[in-house]
């Protein structure tokens, strides 16, 4: 039996556990045996993006310890995938011993939709989601991982789902980690621009592969009572 290792990310673990369960459902249906290393916590991105590299390095080292092995590591986030798949190398560039481990682990990291399209090589998961949705390209998935067509391909096979593209699909939602709390007005303004574009599509749901973007958008939706609902791609693909 093929095995995969889940890194559910701290935000899914702590705030959106349903996303992790949905991802596990999809992978199990495809016949994968799932391993969830319980020592996992966070990838360290908050510290890294805030300029605290020593602190990030400590967390990264813990990640490397936790995820030793050879099964693919599947992650329901483009942003966290980019951190452990790309940026770990910067943290350990002066440490050849760790670099070998970084290379071994980083090359096994797959964002969830990419795992489905490029490793499992599936696009129809038998899902049904009878709603009009729009897809939000999260920045790190789009620009660091070059993920654009994959999630749309997966959505196109979902029964009853209509995908409507927004004009500002590639614009940032304004989350940006600590940016969202250090510059709340700017961050909120960016979310507003994004949501205005989404509302113009007439979609009822916003789909993304990053729970952090969705938390930002849902936070404004909830505050303003907008007729929209955010949903992670894994939840769409798991729904029957």
């Amino acid at each position, binding site marked *: 039996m093929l095995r995969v290792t889940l890194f559910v990310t701290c935000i899914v673990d702590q705030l959106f556990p349903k996303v992790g369960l949905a991802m596990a459902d999809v992978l199990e249906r495809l016949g994968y045996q799932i391993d969830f290393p319980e*020592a996992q916590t966070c990838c360290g991105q908050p510290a890294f993006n805030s300029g605290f590299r020593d602190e990030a390095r400590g967390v990264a080292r813990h990640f490397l310890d936790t995820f030793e092995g050879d099964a693919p590591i599947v992650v329901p986030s483009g942003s966290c995938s980019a951190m452990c798949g790309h940026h770990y190398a910067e943290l350990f560039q002066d440490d050849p011993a760790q670099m070998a481990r970084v290379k071994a682990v980083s090359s096994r990291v797959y964002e969830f939709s990419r795992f489905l399209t490029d490793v499992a090589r599936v696009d129809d998961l038998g899902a049904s989601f009878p709603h009009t949705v729009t897809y939000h390209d999260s*920045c*790190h998935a789009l620009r660091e991982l070059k993920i654009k067509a994959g999630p749309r391909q997966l959505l196109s096979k979902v029964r009853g789902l209509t995908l409507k593209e927004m004009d500002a699909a590639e*614009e940032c939602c304004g989350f940006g980690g*600590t940016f*969202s709390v250090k510059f709340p007005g700017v961050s909120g303004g960016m979310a507003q621009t994004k949501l205005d574009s989404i509302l113009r599509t007439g979609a009822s749901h916003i789909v993304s592969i990053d729970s952090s973007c969705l938390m930002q958008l849902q*936070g404004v939706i909830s505050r303003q009572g907008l007729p929209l609902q955010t949903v992670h791609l894994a939840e769409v693909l798991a729904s029957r």
Partner: protein
Amino acid sequence: MNPIPVDAIKNTLADARLQNAIYSSTARLMDKRAHAIEPGAIDDFQGLRTQANAIKRHAIDNLDYYLEELERNVMARGGKVVWCRDAGEAVQFVLQLSREKGVKRIVKSKSMTTEEIDLNEHLEHAQIEVVETDLGEYILQLAHEKPYHIVAPALHKTRYDVADLFTETLKVERVEEPEQQTQVARRVLREKFITADLGITGANFLVADSGAIVLVENEGNARLSSSAPRIQIAIAGLEKIIPRAQDLATFLKVLGRSATGQPLTVYTSFLSGPRRGGEIDGPEEFYLVLMDNGRTRLLADEGKRQSLYCIRCGACLNHCPVYRKIGGHNYPWVYSGPIGAIISPQFHGVTQDPWLPFASSLCGACAEVCPVKIDIPQVLLDLRSDITQAKRKEGAGKWEHRGFRLFSYVMRRPKLYEMASAMAASVFPGSRDKWLRTLPRLLRLPPIAGWLSQRDLPPPPERSFRSLWRERQRAKGGN
């Protein structure tokens, strides 16, 4: 250490007219660029970016060699080269030459480098008349403002603003059509061109192998500024160097397209020294000011050195969601947007405006459009690290540092992480299905208050993923 200009940013965000002006102008520029780089419009634009990056990398890595080659070639054509260590020396040179040559009136074409050194303010202080001849810059000179954007300096001014300004300052009849406003400026400026003693331009490219200064523009005012007056000075940052004239085949293709979506700007001028025997126009004297003003300091860091590749196209500003919200004047220096956020700290020292590299969601839109492929988000990340280290040395930012130390401590200890999260969930008040509009005062730490100022907060679920997962595995084992 200057704090975040919170109130100024708030005012910009609250000004609907200004927001609309910024958003629509940048959207227009984005749109034009997108069309200009389509495969049908140009072959292999991405390949040109790679090429432009490679040429700039080579030029900056060999700056000493190419600058000396440039100097030799400018001198061979009868021009003079003036090396200036900083803004003070550059300003002093212009003032002194103006005095020596009896200069009463100066015409200037658009130049960010002269904005960088506050040249106009210094000249006016010395009672020398200086006139900006680029329409956008002329508008700003009348309004006593700094450029709002690297390429479109008056991007924030609507035609109605310009109508008000012209009526008030030039005492002319109010006209609201941009064409008519251009005519008004043209009438004033023609007179200045004819009577000016000195013309000052910037430089888009300095070509080492031919000693040429290349200027790109759309209004013809740079060409007039550099040919009508009897003396000309070109003021350039020394990173404007490119090795060979043939490199322009790459740069001219990417610059216009990235800046304004034009395949080529209306005018491309090659200046090479003063008028020679038999020529009917051009200045009698030609000076090239090569200014450092902090640039060579950037050479020291191999990673951040790429900041010097910038050709000032402004594409990163147009595509930046932060610039599009806060506009140009909330940045601490004349260079705004993403490029300003990476060069200002490197020129001025990272602790002067320590908030600036943090004013980014790291979305990466800037790097995606940069014609010379500067990895701006990467430089921002490097600067953030430099800033936290510098702050630590000065004993600042203690609480944030403590916070991240705690974060790191907890994230390396799964048991503690789980306990901490269970505790956090247990003190959370209220329903688990509704997002929270506010929290009790005790829980409203600054980051949470920042979040709540704009959006609702998701309540922590009763059980974390790991707890649900354990149950699921147990249930499976039981089956």
